[in-house]
């Protein structure tokens, strides 16, 4: 535990020094060295826990209201710490290349790197501490640093708005968290998670309310669709690429950590809790993936895809909950192992994709899919890394996205449930299949439009490969994606202890031991198929090399038309037009056109833009909120029956509060 505390001090020291030293190069170097040191210390401390050693404990007592602050790293905390810190470090290394232009200018990059240090510190506070109040502190630290990181380019009004939008949303999440913790605190008079657990183990109305409040808070943090996600596409498109990557891949995993943590505190959940989590996760997965299909801003697209992926992980947790309720350790293992593994997998390939998008932006100064094209020839390595990430995020074998999704599929399709429950689970599997297929559509579109064909706008082309520090970070992430995919045992060995921790006490240890072996049994043949696929591909490539001695080059077949220009290529909006039209109610298209008229038309233009239906509706309701309430109040006071009903409702609520509050 000392190591973790030392690591936290190193991070703080690094942050302070990074702000104070004179040159930009030194500022970045100090931050990266301190992060590397802290990462090494934390890994040294938590890796043994992740592979089965006893949990790290220590505690110190502070005067009220804080009371006892327990520092505890169990397998679940160890898992989240083990990937969060190194990935933040990699993001900081990536920033070296991404912010290169600013290093030479007078801009002070020290604060930016110091904030990255503080983000790492926030992970230690959130994952290693077991005290409600200190948890709030870590939560806020992460939120504020993320906000300041997002508005790096603050002179731009659009970016300030995106940052503010994020700040407001993340504080809504905080309010729910506060409400949830306060309900528990009111009953237990303690901020310690252990006393939280004692209270949450007993089924009661207060427990149900707390569960919903906390799930809402964590869902808001992880950007679940609908209502909770609206800040996300804006913030991701506004932030520097490494910040988007870290927010999406690492920082907002804290929300998913919170979900699992609450589930461990609850003990044996009620059945509705599992269904509740599955329902809103499936909604999030479908909603998120639908929006990925029609975006023209690459980073917005990736942002929506985060909403989809947290939904997939959430589905896993929901299945796990059902497994706990039904006393089915195998189902619980498949759900939690799949969900937790998906957290790691998503962190790996989502960071990779954001870094790829950042490379594109760095070299072409745009991430507008309608302007890009043909980058694979200019930036072959970035193209390769982005393709690896794209295949992985579409959950296609043999890469890592498939591994975690197969665990979740196995839970959904193999659960021994009765009647309607079984049907609902099979239906959820179909939803997951739809999400996977649409995700493949979006990624094909994103990769195909930016890297293949010819540049749609001649000014939006790169003059070379991205800087080395960016390629280095991408290469490591891509290697992670490939290893976790081709050798599923690596990923599964990482989630084994966390799953055991979540399942602890749900069944006799021998039964749990048996259940923990299931994911590996299911994935061993998949690893074999992955190897067979790679071997088949290699054989075919060899045969092709032997067969094709020479080839000729010609223009693309234009179906008889010979004056083809790159502007005539299929565009992003046309690629998703048919799909979008089918889901027109959810994916509204904003269309601005000035069509050419008359026999000798001058210029004309048409602009289409897929807007967020939820966000528009929300702004509309908020904008008209006052008027709506006034209308409602007027109607109530005018109509005798309505005023009677309203009075009755108020009476019932007040009585309810009094009765509930009077209970010990």
């Amino acid at each position, binding site marked *: 535990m000392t190591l973790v505390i030392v690591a936290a001090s190193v991070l703080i020291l690094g942050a302070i020094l990074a702000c104070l030293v004179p040159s930009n190069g030194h500022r970045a170097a100090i931050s990266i060295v301190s992060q590397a040191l802290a990462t090494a210390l934390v890994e040294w401390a938590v890796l043994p826990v992740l592979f089965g050693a006893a949990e790290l404990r220590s505690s110190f007592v502070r005067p009220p209201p804080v009371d006892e602050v327990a520092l505890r790293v169990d397998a679940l905390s160890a898992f989240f710490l083990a990937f969060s810190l190194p990935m933040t470090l990699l993001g900081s290394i990536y920033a070296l290349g991404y912010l290169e232009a600013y290093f030479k200018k007078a801009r002070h990059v020290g604060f930016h790197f110091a904030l990255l240090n503080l983000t790492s510190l926030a992970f230690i506070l959130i994952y290693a501490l077991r005290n409600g109040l200190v948890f709030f502190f870590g939560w806020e630290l992460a939120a504020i640093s993320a906000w300041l990181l997002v508005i790096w380019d603050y002179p731009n009004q659009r970016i300030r708005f995106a940052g503010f939008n994020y700040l407001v949303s993340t504080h809504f999440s905080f309010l729910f968290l506060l409400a949830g913790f306060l309900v528990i605190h009111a009953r237990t008079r303690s901020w310690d998670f252990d006393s939280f657990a004692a209270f949450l183990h007993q089924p009661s109305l207060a427990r149900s309310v707390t569960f919903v409040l906390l799930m809402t808070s964590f869902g808001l943090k992880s950007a679940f669709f609908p209502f909770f996600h609206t800040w996300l596409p804006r913030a991701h498109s506004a932030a520097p690429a490494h910040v988007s990557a870290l927010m999406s891949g690492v920082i907002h995993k804290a929300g998913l950590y919170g979900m699992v943590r609450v589930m461990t505190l609850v003990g044996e959940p009620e059945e509705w809790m599992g269904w509740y989590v599955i329902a809103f996760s499936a909604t999030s997965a479908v909603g998120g993936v639908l929006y990925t299909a029609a975006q023209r801003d690459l980073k917005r697209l990736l942002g929506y895809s985060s909403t989809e992926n947290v939904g997939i992980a959430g589905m896993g947790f929901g299945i796990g909950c059902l497994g706990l309720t039904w006393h089915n350790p195998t189902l619980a293992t498949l759900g939690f192992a799949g969900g937790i593994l998906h957290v790691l997998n998503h962190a790996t390939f989502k960071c990779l994709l954001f870094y790829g998008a950042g490379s594109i932006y760095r070299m072409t100064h745009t991430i507008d899919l309608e302007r890009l094209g043909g980058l694979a020839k200019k930036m072959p390595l970035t193209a390769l890394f982005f393709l690896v990430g794209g295949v992985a995020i579409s959950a296609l074998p043999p890469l890592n996205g498939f591994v975690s999704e197969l665990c979740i599929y196995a839970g959904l399709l193999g659960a021994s449930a009765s009647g309607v429950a079984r049907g609902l689970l099979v239906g959820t599997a179909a939803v997951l*299949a739809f999400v996977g297929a649409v995700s*493949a559509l979006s990624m094909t579109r994103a990769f195909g439009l930016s890297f293949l064909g010819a540049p749609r706008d001649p000014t939006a082309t790169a003059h070379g490969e991205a800087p080395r520090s960016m390629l280095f970070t991408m290469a490591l992430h891509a290697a992670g994606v490939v290893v976790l995919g081709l050798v599923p045992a690596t990923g599964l060995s990482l989630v084994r202890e966390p799953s055991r921790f979540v399942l602890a006490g749900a069944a006799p240890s021998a039964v749990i031991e048996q259940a923990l072996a299931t994911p590996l049994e299911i994935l061993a043949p998949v690893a074999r198929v992955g190897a067979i696929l790679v071997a088949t591909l290699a054989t075919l490539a060899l045969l092709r090399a032997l067969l094709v001695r020479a080839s000729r080059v010609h223009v693309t*077949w234009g179906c008889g038309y010979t004056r083809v220009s790159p502007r005539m290529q299929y565009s992003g909006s046309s690629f998703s037009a048919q799909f979008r039209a089918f889901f027109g109610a959810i994916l509204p298209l904003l269309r601005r056109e000035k069509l050419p008229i008359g026999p000798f038309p001058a210029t004309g233009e048409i602009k289409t833009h897929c807007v967020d239906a939820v966000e528009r509706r929300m702004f509309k309701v908020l904008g008209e909120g006052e008027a709506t309430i006034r209308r409602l109040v007027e109607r109530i006071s005018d109509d005798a029956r309505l005023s009677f009903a309203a009075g009755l409702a108020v009476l019932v609520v007040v009585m309810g509060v009094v009765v509930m509050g009077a209970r010990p």
Partner: protein
Amino acid sequence: MNAWAALHVALLLVGPIYFVGIVNRTKSIWGGRRGPRLDQLFHDLVRLLRKEPVYSETTSVLVRAGPLVALATAIVAAAIAPVVSGYSILSFPYDFVVFAYLLGLGRMFLMLAALDTGSAFEGMGASREATFASFIEPAFFLTLGSFAVLSGESSFVRILAPSGHLGAGVIFGFVALLIFLQIEAARIPVDDPNTHLELTMIHEVMILDHSGPDLAALQTAAALKMFTCAGILAAVLNPFGIETHPAAATVTSIALIAATGVGVGLVESLVARLRMSALPRYALVAVLASVVSVGLVVLRGGNA
């Protein structure tokens, strides 16, 4: 078991060629012609393999990788699915998920190869392929999920193994799988492999700029995929299990696959292809059929 593996491999080697032959022969006879020989595809492939490929100047390495990945995934997927009902070389729990996702991987690379040429027509084909694939995918999972509930099994061959009765749930599932074949293998009424207008194509337009060995790989992959889908349909209908009646199971499976070929040919002769805008609804028919199948199976407690 080795004899079964040998049979599976042998069927995968010759089956796709003759299956395409049967479909085309049926269409010719119905149209009053004699038609090409049954092994015409084989001769076409040999001819293509000898040719020198032509590449568009716009393309990168992906146009070369696309056909290879499409063929490799089709081969591995064909090794997972049952051809003779009740047996496949690669069989393990939840292998049908792997099957569907392998086809997805092949599809993705095919679409990328199409986008690589920078042609508007090929982009259009890729867009259509992606759209219809996302509509049909849930139907496949619902159907297989329904059959899994019915059989209490988890691997592709065991799920489709003869359950002894052909209830309403199975029939609805069969309809869904039939539409799955038509979309996955790009046949009428979804797509017309013989059309000559690029605007109306789906699968064919994506491979416009492929030639020589690359085109051969794509055609092999397409034939293999269609044969595999026919094998799945045959496995649903086959009443014999390989443990109890090995010979009868084999003969019936092959006969049913040939009959599927005739059926596909007849549909192509008798039915006009659907308008492009009607295709999402056609895919929804499959989804609805599979939902009904799941509903029947679940509500009747596994006796549907």
